[in-house]
């Protein structure tokens, strides 16, 4: 399945990418993240949370959306 991955803030800077389409064979978000670590080694030591359908989800969550968003620590206000 094709998934759109979005990167915000520091993460888009270290990956050099704001948005990409990624071919994923399915499974948990943790599995997807492991694959993204291979594609973007610069992500490995970065703190982030993952949103699916605009909600933060634990990494063990099954991937069900075709869009996954990686969010560094929030620093609004």
């Amino acid at each position, binding site marked *: 399945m094709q998934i759109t991955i979005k990167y*915000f803030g520091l993460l888009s800077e270290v990956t050099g990418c704001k948005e990409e389409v990624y071919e994923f064979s399915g499974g948990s978000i943790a599995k997807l993240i492991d694959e993204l670590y291979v594609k973007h080694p610069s992500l490995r030591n970065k703190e982030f949370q993952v949103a699916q359908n605009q909600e933060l989800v634990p990494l063990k969550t099954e991937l069900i959306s075709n869009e996954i968003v990686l969010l560094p620590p*929030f620093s*609004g*206000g």
Partner: protein
Amino acid sequence: MDNKKPKSVFKQGAISSEFIADSIAKHQTKTSIGAHNIFLGQVRADVIQNKTVSAIEYTAYEEMANNKFHEIREATFEKFELTCMHIYHSLGLVKAGEICLFVFVSSPHRKMVFEALEYVVEEIKSKVPVFGKEIFEDNSHQWKINN
């Protein structure tokens, strides 16, 4: 009660004092209000390793952020007896000394507004996906971390 879903709380660039004044003036017809409480976040010219922050550039995961703002509004009206509430957050460049966050709550009585405003601001800080890039005078930058 003025709790309909806003299109967007984001504004491009800094929030001007005229905009805030206008927002205050609009409440003069709401004569059940006895107390307003306003929080303003202002960009600090922090000095970090001898370099001074000259501006913050804000980006956000906008769809999720607007949803979160909406959830925070709903939860706040649920918890506190408020007449109205307004939230505005900047996107893009906001210079040191300029205002990047404007939260405005109003109620018949003062006790409510103090509790409600602090609740809203803390919720925004912790739950809304907004990202600040601190830009130094030499154009280098670092990503802001809230505490």
